[in-house]
């Protein structure tokens, strides 16, 4: 398949991008608002064209462990879910981090806690970037703000996770998952052959040839001293990712008196809000982290002496604001504005909040 321009939903874009990236396997369990990912994959029948395996698991727990199993064979494997299902996947994500396995997990967030609502939310920020599963690990986290980025982040997520042997997540929500936009789908990439996998992922358990030691993919190390060393190595790896893989977008931040910090759908709303502000003569910029972990702290920090305040706009009660405050070392006033439980604010509400909380 050649490069192609299409109009589709964010969820569908993920499915198409996965096939075109040459993903080996998708394992999922239905939940709104992301079910179109598996539905699209089933409809496209990629097993007939690329050989991609698509399987509906009996639960999210099972699906993420299928990802663990596929990844342990060195394959490009992914899963997707929405908030309650992602909670169930946390066991597997921790094990993947512990076993240093690559793989892509997609969270199309909805309002919680609990069964909550099926409307868009960003309330899983803490769960994703501060932990989720047990142990000292980090999850590479990408926050797309358009249907195009939903497609692009599939490739980016896999590339990063394979570069560092660490799971990666696309953290999106029902807005981006359900909205339709124009998207350029990439050219079809071929799936890796077993020979290529054995060369590029020499640790993979694919059957032991006579000339090498057995491969054991595990997160177990009962010797605490060795486990400490392993953790130290993990931390060094995380540091490397923080130094090298930060992505963000700064829109009209150079002359700004105020900066709105927002990711994903909140950034889309805020982009309109900064336009409304500028029409009123208020100089506002938008700083949009694309990687939520690693967080673009240094880049955000560079604005701390230039602006009068920052507003963290999120579809939650104030989670990313902690990272914004840490980034600017509390040297500039930082306020939060968010709607909760599945409500998306309007651009005017964002602008009003900016005026109320920072300009007064």
């Amino acid at each position, binding site marked *: 398949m050649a490069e192609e321009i299409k109009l589709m939903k964010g969820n569908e874009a993920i499915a198409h991008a996965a096939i075109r990236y040459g993903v*080996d*396997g998708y*394992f999922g369990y239905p939940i709104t608002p992301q079910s179109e990912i598996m539905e699209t994959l089933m409809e496209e029948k990629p097993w007939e064209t690329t050989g991609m*395996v698509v*399987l509906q*698991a*009996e*639960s999210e*727990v*099972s*699906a993420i*462990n*299928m*990802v*663990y*199993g*596929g990844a*342990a*064979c060195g*394959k490009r*494997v992914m899963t997707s879910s929405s908030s309650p299902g992602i909670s169930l996947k946390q*066991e*597997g994500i921790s*094990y993947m981090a512990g*076993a240093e396995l690559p793989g892509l997990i997609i969270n199309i967030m909805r309002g919680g806690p609990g069964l909550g609502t099926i409307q868009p939310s960003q309330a899983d920020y803490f769960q994703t970037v501060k932990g989720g599963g047990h142990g000292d690990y980090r999850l590479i986290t990408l926050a797309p703000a358009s249907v195009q980025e939903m497609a692009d982040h599939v490739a980016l997520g896999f590339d990063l996770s394979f570069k560092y042997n660490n799971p990666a997540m696309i953290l999106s929500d029902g807005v981006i998952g359900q909205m339709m936009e124009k998207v350029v789908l990439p050219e079809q990439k071929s799936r890796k052959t*077993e020979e290529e996998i054995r060369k590029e992922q020499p640790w993979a*358990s*694919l*059957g*032991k*040839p*006579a000339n090498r030691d*057995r*491969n*054991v*993919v*595990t*997160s*177990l190390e009962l010797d605490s001293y060795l486990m400490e060393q392993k953790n130290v190595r993990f931390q060094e790896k995380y540091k490397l990712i923080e130094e090298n893989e930060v992505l963000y977008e700064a829109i009209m931040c150079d002359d700004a008196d105020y900066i709105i910090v927002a990711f994903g759908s909140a950034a889309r709303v805020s982009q309109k809000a900064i336009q409304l502000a500028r029409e009123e003569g208020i100089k506002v910029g938008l700083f949009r982290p694309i990687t939520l972990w690693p967080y673009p702290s240094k880049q955000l920090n560079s604005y701390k002496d230039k602006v009068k305040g920052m507003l963290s706009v999120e579809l939650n009660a104030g989670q990313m604001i902690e990272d914004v405050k840490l980034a600017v070392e509390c040297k500039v006033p930082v306020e939060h504005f968010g709607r909760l439980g599945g409500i998306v604010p309007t651009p005017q509400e964002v602008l009003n909040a900016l005026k109320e909380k920072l300009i007064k």
Partner: protein
Amino acid sequence: MNTIDIIKPENKVYGKPTLMNDNAMHYCPGCSHGVVHKLIAEVIEDMGMAETTIGIAPVGCAVFAYNYLDIDWIEAAHGRAPAIATAAKRLNPEKMVFTYQGDGDLAAIGTAETIHACNRGENIVIVFINNAIYGMTGGQMAPTTLLDMKTATCPYGRNVALNGYPLKISDLLAQLEGTCLVTRETVHTAAAIKKAKKMLRKAFENAMAGKGTSVVEFVSTCASGWKMTPDQANKWMVANMLPMYPLGVLKEKE
């Protein structure tokens, strides 16, 4: 005939399987895990599948199975081995994939994964060690613990009102369309070991022939967990476990 004449390759009747590593085993004396490991090693070796087999190790006493068998392994979270095996096999249909699981692993935390992998008829082998107890964590009650049997978490004996009934999970798995072979074996006598090996080989052949899921249950001993000597454990197993978990083929599809 002198000794030198006897020790000749053509006279050899028994040896350590080449796939068994020289590591000293961590299993307790009298434990069934070691014997079952040996059988798996022999079957893989006999079938010439050492280079194409992927083992899925459990949580429990056999968590270190990968230290003993010289093949590639994936270590699973507690109970998740059948899900991992599902992906490993579907993504590598030409490989031999088997799980190795205890009763806590397969019949408690991993019940859903086990039932659904079997029901989908995944072309894998599930090796199930039923010692009626959680060995590794210190002898707590398992779903398969017998009524009146004492464990660390049912110190007065398993009681229906408190703990429910022993779970005959293999009988349940035999009901599922996806399983092609479900059999219950033991390894406490030479004859039993010989028969168990035959069934294990059949299971591995089924998986390669794409016939569906094969489950080989081993009614096993846990001398430590049962607080017995190895000999007492074998006798106790025969007298108490086998009436509840009778040996033999529960299901075989042709």
